[in-house]
């Protein structure tokens, strides 16, 4: 059971969060998630740090669970699965990424005033 949870975390959840964060850096995915007129801008440093952190955590869990020999194969394939899942979410259910991505977005100062 612990094994399954760890793999679900490292192979699916963390890469999805990482690529979800990276997608929010781009204009088109941002518009798909928050709408065209939201005016939200990504907090780049926070988003990129979060995404890199998730990727590193995924690699660490895989190395711990499967060993380096298998982790070097598992990790790139997990990234593919994560990126593909984000792509499907952006296509069919973009708003689901909104609640996760919202803390990493901000309104420009001019709009806040």
């Amino acid at each position: 059971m612990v094994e399954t949870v760890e793999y679900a975390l490292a192979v699916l959840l963390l890469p999805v969060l990482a690529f979800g964060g990276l997608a929010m850096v781009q204009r088109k995915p941002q518009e798909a998630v928050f709408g065209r007129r939201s005016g939200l801008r990504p907090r780049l440093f926070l988003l990129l740090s979060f995404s890199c952190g998730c990727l590193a955590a995924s690699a660490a869990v895989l190395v711990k669970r499967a060993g380096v020999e298998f982790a070097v194969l598992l990790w790139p394939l997990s990234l593919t699965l994560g990126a593909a899942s984000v792509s499907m979410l952006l296509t069919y259910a973009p708003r689901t990424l909104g609640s996760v991505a919202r803390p990493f977005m901000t309104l420009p100062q001019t709009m806040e005033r």
Partner: protein
Amino acid sequence: MHPEFRATMTWLHTWAGVILGSVMFVMFFMGTLSVFKAEIDQWMLPQARLDPLKTPVSPDALYDAIREHVGDDLTSMRIVMPSKHFPAAVIYVYPESGGSRTLLLDPNRMEFQAPVDSAAARSFLYPMHYRLIPVPYGRWVSAVVAMFMLAMMVSGVVIHRKIFVDFFTFRPGRKLPRSSLDLHNLTSVLAMPFHIMITLTGVIILYNLYFLPSLNAVYPDSERPRLEIRHDLEGTHDTVPTGTANTGRIARIEEMAAQAGPYWGGEKLADIFIEHPDDQGGVVWLHKSLANQVSTHDRPILFNASTGRMLTTPQTTVAYTAQQWLSGVHMIFFDHWVLRWLYFLAGAAGCIMIATGFLYWIETRRKSHLRNKTPGVRIVESLAVWSVMGLMTATAAYFVVNRAFAPGLWSWQGILKPYLEIVVFYLVWVSALLHGWIRGKAAWGEQAWILGLLGTSAVVLNWTSTGDHVLKTLLAGDFAIAGMDLALLAGAIISIASARRIGKVRRQSL
């Protein structure tokens, strides 16, 4: 980037894809299925659906049971020990009278099972991945196509102008050329690490095909230079019988395995090859299990069969060790369920990439070719229908025939069941080409309907012929059979949904 360079790469990518796409799809599809070849084998051979091994089985007990069963007409035999993925012991017997037999043995009861009556995945679908059709030079064709696949990946990156901007883009609601190009880009870019890794390692596995002239130079007097280099790299050699009869039985295999233990780092015995067991010069090869390692190097150790003395220890060069690791990355003999599923999904992405590449080419040229009365689209479309829908339909028909003719029905009209399955596979596949040529665009939807019906029939026939339905196998924890049934059902549902959608689009366009 120079526009002329990009144009050249576009030309290469387009035409290599159009000409070789069919072969690439066969390789990708069969490779993807081969990820679960042990599970498919269990589904296709109900006599191999056994309880998991309760206690470790003694190789000596297996050998004794086999000797009792096959008698003295024996040159050599191979015993594949039961594993988590395949609970039966598989025995290949090579009699002195020639030919070979494959036997299945239930290791819990030490009982031989019904004869193997299907080529299943291990002997048909998997070899098709690297040998295509059973002709002498099939491997050469797949080797050349693998090289082109690498070239297409590089050219694909060069011609994809918005590789990062369109990283997550998929617009299924747009017209077919746009949505198929989106899906082509998505599956190729996101799964690129896998595609590069699997193609490059595929090329590396076939090194002795590419460099055959150099092998001939190293072994000028040998008729089998590829075998010679393998012997030299592994530190192994052919054995010659002495002609002196071995009066007693062979030495205990368990003791040989105990001697091999220190060289195997605690791994279990997986594969035994016994040559000339009735001769004093007879030998036993022991190979370790590959379940917990990526490399395919199973560190074979040679023993004298009558004395049990170790004759050679595993010897490998650094280059060979590296080559075997890379081969292992491709062949996935390891036992890691998460990684196997990831390979399967990435392989499926490769299939989608090739199919959507075809669709994009066809749809962007359909009107102009029709207007100019050029046969290009018709030819490519029938090839695409044949290689994509036709191959999947033929594979589903292969499964249906396997389950329609129960194990007791060994022969039908004088045709043995394994041959019948293969004949039906090729008949359906060739028919798909003709159907694609005659029906053109309509063939996609029509074959999707047939595929859906065949997939469903295979699941129903498995239930009626063995009593194993999805719920039963799921509740019993028999995930190999349940997984196969569920995969067939999922494939059938996707096919029928696609067929309905294609039909709807066609009706709207009329």
